């Protein structure tokens, strides 16, 4: 029987659930730690535009080869692009590495902001971990402030 893999998720009461991982994109030579909101309401793992630019993703280049997508939420709709060949590397509770490959992630264009506060909040908006990764694990809420991905 395979040993259980557990990845810790920070689940502070009154806040979203967050998990950290190394975001790796081979063809762009990107590897950088990122914070992800664990979002069962999102089908795909998604990067906001600001975060993608920080990582060194050139959205203009993505547009050249784009597969056009429109995405919508409670706050409205915006355009999205697809960034292929992504790996997320998590650290399990036993300090082993857990690598998950994704054929693509969505890169979400930042929507127009109404004021400076919204712009600043968007600037530090984390990445979104979608069902394309979440469904590979069992999500278990346990002790105070923590949940776990298990497999």
């Amino acid at each position, binding site marked *: 029987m395979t040993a259980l893999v557990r990845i810790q998720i920070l689940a502070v009461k009154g*806040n979203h659930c967050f998990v950290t*991982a190394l975001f790796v994109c081979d*063809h762009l030579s990107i590897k*950088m*730690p990122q914070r992800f909101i664990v979002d069962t309401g999102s089908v795909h793992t998604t990067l906001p535009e600001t975060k993608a630019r920080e990582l060194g993703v050139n959205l203009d280049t993505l547009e050249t080869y784009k597969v056009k997508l429109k995405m919508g939420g*409670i706050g409205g709709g915006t355009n999205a692009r697809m960034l292929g060949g992504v790996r997320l*590397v998590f650290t399990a509770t036993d300090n082993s590495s857990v690598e998950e490959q994704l054929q693509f992630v969505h890169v979400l264009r930042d929507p127009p902001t109404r004021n400076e506060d919204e712009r600043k909040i968007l600037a530090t908006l984390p990445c979104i971990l979608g069902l394309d990764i979440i469904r590979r694990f069992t999500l278990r809420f346990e002790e105070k402030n923590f949940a776990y991905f298990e497999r």
Partner: protein
Amino acid sequence: MGLICGHTVLQTDDKIGEMKPKMATVTIEKSDLDKLAEFTKNTHWLLEHVDNLRAEYPDRYIAVFDSGKQVLDAQTMEELTRKILEHARDPETCAIEFVTREPYLLII
């Protein structure tokens, strides 16, 4: 058959019909995992203490290092980035947040 997706060409593996990216591989070093561990500690500290930080750094960008032992703040992201580099810290390991004066609930 291939699908162009960003810079990556996804190729179909005919045996299983699955799209797989064909590309060079970035190697994950121990130092990368150490960075991730440091980033995780700082992120956890930030998220657990964000309500306390709100009183001290309202409407400021902050960067958390050493599990909260050092917090840098600035009016703008550019200023914060400059401070991080001035303190000779690795920006990839710190947790950065814009701390709103009032609690802000994100609906996604």
